[in-house]
């Protein structure tokens, strides 16, 4: 079978015919490998193949013309890709696929094949046209990337596992340290309590009791931290509710009602001890001063995150703060002032005859 040059001369293509046809010349000369097949001949054989196609495959024109293109396929060609081509051709659709082909010398190359039917004016398929591009480099690069990615992924997995193990060891150590701190805090509290009952002087003994409550507040902070799942955050809302219930409960002051409006309020655990002490001072002050001499009343507790700020409020409807000129600051108010500054917050006291309100405002984050 001879190469046909008449494929472009069919009556349907309305342009100048003959050897000088610029389209035919272009297709012959382009560096893009191209073939044309005739589906009306048995087994849809190649009727035209340009120079570039011959260079790509290593076959001479006589070896190409008259054969079905599947002669480029070989043992490692993907069956699925061949099936895709078969279906597209049967359905007279254009198709684009990367397929493994073989040259005459047996060497493999990746063929980025694009083929499409060419229809006459009557709508019937007259030819199939295809271009073949050697994309071996691209596919190879892709394969390498995939391989590298797999290696990296395995490596990442290994590292993650190692880090997880390290974290586990660290958590274990942390829990051990925590455990000891906790035991020491319990002992310090017990020591102070034992000493306190030896002291005859009620003034000194009451100071020692106040100190004891501070140690106990720290112990409570520590216990809550240790029991929480995330040791980097501290729920100061729950802590406040806890402390208020403890202090009022243990005082036996059933005449002091508690009205708690607390939500989960997380702060960094580095600020937990300071805030624990602050709240302890405010609550014990209320019991000691606002509701002194058996005066009954309600202690309002409020804790909420508002616009990224942690807002804590302890207010009583007790006796109210003494006038400025008679107010003598004890350790309590001094601690509150210093510690709120330490945690980057502010404390405002609002004293009225109707009671005292103290508001702590600090950044909830880092």
């Amino acid at each position, binding site marked *: 079978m001879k190469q046909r040059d008449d494929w472009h001369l069919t009556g349907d293509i309305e342009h100048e015919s003959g050897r000088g046809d610029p389209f035919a010349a272009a297709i012959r000369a382009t560096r893009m490998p191209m073939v044309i097949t005739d589906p009306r001949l048995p087994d849809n054989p190649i009727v035209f193949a340009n120079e570039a196609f011959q260079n790509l495959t290593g076959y001479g024109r006589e070896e190409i013309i008259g054969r079905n293109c599947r002669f480029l396929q070989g043992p490692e060609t993907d069956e699925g890709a061949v099936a895709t081509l078969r279906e597209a051709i049967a359905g007279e659709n254009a198709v684009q696929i990367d397929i493994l082909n073989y040259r005459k010398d047996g060497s493999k190359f990746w063929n980025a094949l694009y083929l499409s039917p060419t229809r006459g004016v009557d709508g019937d398929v007259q030819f199939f046209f295809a271009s073949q591009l050697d994309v071996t480099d691209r596919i190879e690069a892709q394969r390498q990337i995939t391989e590298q990615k797999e290696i990296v992924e395995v490596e990442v997995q290994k590292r993650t596992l190692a880090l997880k193990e390290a974290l586990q060891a660290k958590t274990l150590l942390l829990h051990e340290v925590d*455990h000891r701190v906790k035991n020491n805090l319990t002992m310090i509290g017990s020591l102070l309590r034992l000493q306190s009952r030896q002291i005859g002087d009620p003034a000194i003994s009451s100071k020692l009791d106040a100190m004891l409550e501070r140690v106990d507040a720290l112990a409570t902070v520590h216990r809550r931290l240790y029991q929480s799942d995330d040791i980097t955050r501290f729920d100061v809302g729950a802590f406040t509710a*806890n402390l208020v219930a403890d*202090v009022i*409960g*243990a005082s036996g002051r059933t005449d002091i009602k508690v009205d708690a409006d607390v939500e989960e309020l997380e702060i960094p655990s580095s600020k937990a001890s300071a805030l624990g002490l602050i709240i302890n001072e405010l609550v014990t002050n209320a019991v000691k001063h606002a509701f002194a001499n058996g005066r009954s009343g309600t202690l309002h507790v409020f804790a909420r995150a508002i616009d990224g700020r942690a807002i804590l409020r302890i207010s009583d409807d007790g006796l109210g703060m003494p006038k400025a000129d008679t107010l003598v600051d004890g350790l309590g108010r001094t601690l509150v002032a210093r510690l709120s500054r330490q945690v980057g917050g502010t404390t405002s006291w609002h004293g009225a005859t109707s009671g005292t309100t103290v508001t702590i405002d600090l950044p909830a984050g880092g």
Partner: protein
Amino acid sequence: MGRRHTPLRFLVVEDEALLAMDLGMMIEDAGHHVVAEAGCLREVQGLDVGIAPDVAFVDLHLAEGSSGLDVCAHIKQNWGDAIIVFVTANPRKLRVDHPGAHGVIAKPFSRNGIMSALRYITEGICDPPPSASTPPDFTAFPALAATWKD
């Protein structure tokens, strides 16, 4: 189990001397009696059966490598009416349905925490059910509420 009256009889099982003393004194401050103290299982086993404690405070990790859980079993067997409350730094190691256990107080404890718990337990034993809600430092197990029914 007949209704009991204050002062209640307490057994304190704690190997840390300071804590045992401290707990003992808070119990006395609350108006009760400590009828015996022990630091390990062996000492508990050596106690006179006649002490008949109403409440036992039991640490989990005890001297001589003994366990509060074994102490709990011993108490349950010898003084079946005793309310057993664990006082431990590892409250999470306990199951709420551990046989014989009625609740747990977490360490480090505070005076306020212990006093509220004592108040609650006392009311639960002498005049159930307790008027106040469960104090925050005390976790009551279902077995405790079960004793209020009879």
